[in-house]
């Protein structure tokens, strides 16, 4: 378990419930500054919920969420507005505003948070689109873009204000190999070139492990383990091992709970 010097985000004893179900039970996670940290785990364990908690879209039922020392759930509206200026989030589907052009989409955060004149905004938009390789698409509408291109434009929008923290929600889902490669490269590149901290939530092992500096494996309301990718690959914990090696059966069972096989077969033509 590596210790870093500076943590930009700390989740302390965070508990979150959805209805009667407990999603997290007193979870502790620390995101080191300047590094790419991955939060991984099986589907449905609530990984995306982390990002929403950090971004204050959801409130935890207990615990503190510290971003740069500020407890996010306790912030007032104005303070939250200022805090969000330093966070960028890339949603799974890109989530571009369909009624605005690519230019207007990327310019949106600039118009909201700054008073910059039009020509400066144009320059910054061009800059961000160049970084993701889509400067030529500046005049298109979102429905004229492919899925991968939409995500890249959304990425340009997310970094428009030069945030300190970038959050990626399942960025690799449903991508073809080329788009996947582009995205993987961009995440790492932007993180290092712009001095960002990136949090990648994913269940895609290979791609994520290739760029992550640190991984948290989450499951069953708890953090199952955390460490550098190579540390986790050789872990003793059977659940981490099952996840990292992709084993079909293990602590997460293959068979859905059912009665004995023999009993089921002998029931004849009865349906249940």
């Amino acid at each position: 378990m590596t210790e870093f010097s500076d943590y930009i985000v700390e989740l302390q004893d965070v508990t979150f419930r959805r209805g009667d179900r407990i999603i997290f039970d007193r979870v502790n996670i620390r995101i080191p500054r300047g590094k790419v940290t991955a939060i991984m785990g099986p589907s449905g364990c609530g990984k995306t919920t982390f990002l929403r908690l950090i971004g204050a879209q959801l409130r935890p039922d207990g615990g503190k969420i510290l971003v740069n020392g500020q407890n996010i759930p306790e912030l007032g509206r104005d303070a939250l507005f200022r805090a969000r200026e330093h966070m960028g989030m890339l949603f799974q589907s890109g989530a571009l505003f369909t009624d605005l052009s690519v230019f207007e989409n990327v310019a949106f955060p600039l118009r909201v948070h700054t008073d910059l004149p039009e020509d400066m905004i144009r320059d910054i938009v061009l800059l961000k689109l160049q970084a993701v390789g889509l400067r030529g698409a500046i005049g298109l509408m979102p429905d004229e873009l492919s899925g991968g291109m939409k995500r890249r434009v959304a990425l340009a929008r997310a970094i428009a204000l030069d945030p300190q923290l970038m959050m990626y929600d399942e960025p690799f889902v449903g991508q073809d190999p080329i788009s996947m490669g582009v995205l993987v490269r961009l995440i790492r590149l932007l993180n290092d070139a712009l001095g960002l901290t990136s949090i990648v939530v994913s269940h895609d092992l290979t791609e994520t492990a290739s760029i992550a500096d640190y991984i948290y494996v989450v499951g069953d309301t708890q953090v199952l383990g955390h460490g550098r990718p190579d540390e986790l690959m050789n872990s003793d914990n059977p659940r981490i091992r099952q996840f990292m090696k992709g084993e079909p059966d293990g602590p997460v069972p293959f068979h859905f709970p059912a009665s004995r096989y023999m009993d089921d077969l002998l029931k004849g033509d009865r349906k249940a």
Partner: protein
Amino acid sequence: MKTMIDRVALIGRSGLDVLAATGRSGVFLFNALVGRSRFGNGFQLLVKQLYAVGVLSLAIIVVSGLFIGMVLALQGYNILKDYGSEQAVGQMVALTLLRELGPVVTALLFAGRAGSALTAEIGLMKATEQLSSMEMIGVDPLKYVIAPRLWAGFISMPLLALIFCVVGIWGGAMVAVDWLGVYSGSYWANMQNSVQFTHDVLNGLTKAVVFAFVVTWIAVFQGYDCEPTSEGISRATTRTVVYASLAVLGLDFILTALMF
């Protein structure tokens, strides 16, 4: 016995769900309309929505108004003929349209055309996480997306109701005077004598304003509150049309009892 108790519990739970949804929609409305917004071009957004919601509904409103006015004149003439009072068809058409059909039919058509479109649009924005990403950027989707649509509905529906009435009266005049032979002077004079501005026109307008408020509120809330799946959106759209129509008809009864 157990299933009976289960059924009662289910009814109770649905009742509580409805109450919870009503409460949510109230908070939703308050947050959308009250408070300042952080972006400057609210007016631009409003204009865009007025176009989408108001101008684009003109076609259906005008055509429906015309036909309803003509049918009213036709039927009214047939009925009044038995009492020898065909000359009163003008005031019949005008009063029916101004007091009842204008606000109510406009509201029902509006709920079906503009209301369902609003629900689907907002539901889709929710399903594709546009609303969430807006929030993450620091813009309150209630102020940026919902509020302009609410105001557009509040403003345009009463205007549409007025246009409906005028077109209907004119359509009725066409049928009554040009076709059925009612004396043009009587049509308009009887109408002017019996239609009172405050009692009939303004009351009808008040109804239209109330309906506009309720229909737009329901449409926008159903979109915002729906499940972010394609099934959820289609259910929400259906709910908008059904709830809004029932609400309009129910409120019409109450308002008519109060006003007339």
